[in-house]
């Protein structure tokens, strides 16, 4: 009962924030709103017991994305350009994609179903072995950090490389601009 009401309130706030993002024209405000949007979806993940997913969402969505978007605004303009075409075709595309996604969820097992494939494959074995093997309370952490440690290491390397690439691109752009200004002066 409490879960349902909480989910309904959070989803309502999420939809309202999304509508506000669409309607807003000042891009600074859009960046703030998208940070709140990602905090709200993180809260929804927490109510679904996926605290690790929620934390990633908050760190990436509300933390890094905000900084990156502000950096982008510093390089471009802070006001949205008026669209010259109507939004009819994009609206149809979004509608069809949403319908396909909803259709896809119809085959999924119910939330918390003990007979779902995810619960009967290797899950019970991890749950049984983690207290003896690794001894941390969160089994997801044990799987990510130990059983699939090399996989996590690879992911971290990919993210690190992407971050360095973005930093190199941005600093190169600024230096080129300063060179141009010096040339003009």
């Amino acid at each position, binding site marked *: 009962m409490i879960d349902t009401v909480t989910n309904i309130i959070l989803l309502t706030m999420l939809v309202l924030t999304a509508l506000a993002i669409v309607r807003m024209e000042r891009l600074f405000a859009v960046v703030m709103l998208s940070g709140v949007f990602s905090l709200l979806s993180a809260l929804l993940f927490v109510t679904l017991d996926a605290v690790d997913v929620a934390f990633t969402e908050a760190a990436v969505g509300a933390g890094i994305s905000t900084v990156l978007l502000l950096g982008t605004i*510093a390089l471009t303009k802070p006001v949205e350009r008026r669209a010259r075409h109507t939004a009819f075709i994009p609206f149809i595309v979004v509608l069809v994609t949403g319908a396909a996604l909803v259709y896809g969820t119809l085959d999924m097992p119910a939330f918390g179903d003990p007979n779902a494939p995810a619960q009967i494959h290797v899950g019970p074995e991890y749950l049984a072995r983690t207290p003896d093997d690794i001894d941390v309370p969160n089994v997801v952490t044990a799987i990510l950090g130990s059983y699939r440690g090399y996989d996590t290491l690879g992911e971290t390397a990919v993210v690190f490389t992407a971050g360095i690439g973005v930093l190199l691109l941005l600093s190169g752009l600024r230096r080129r601009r300063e060179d141009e200004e010096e040339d003009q002066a």
Partner: protein
Amino acid sequence: MFESMPHYVFLTALICLFIAMILVLIRLYNGPTLYDRVLSTNSFGTHTVLFIGVLGFLTGRPDFLDIALLYALINFVGTIAILKFFRYRAIGDVLEKREADK
């Protein structure tokens, strides 16, 4: 210490948090200045931390409390980054830029 408190205390706290969240969101949607929005984003982050804590106690598993602390850290760093951007119009290389202005 908090585990022994009755259920309705946390329920009341949750309802109050939702009301506070809605008030903050109204300020966020309406503005009018940019600083209202920065402040409301920051305080929404604080509400996120509190919500995770209260929900943990309400469902009888306060293990998520340390995760809520990490949210507070992210919120702090994010607010610092936003304010630094408003002050200097750039995220990195601030010292270099100020020296160049002189």
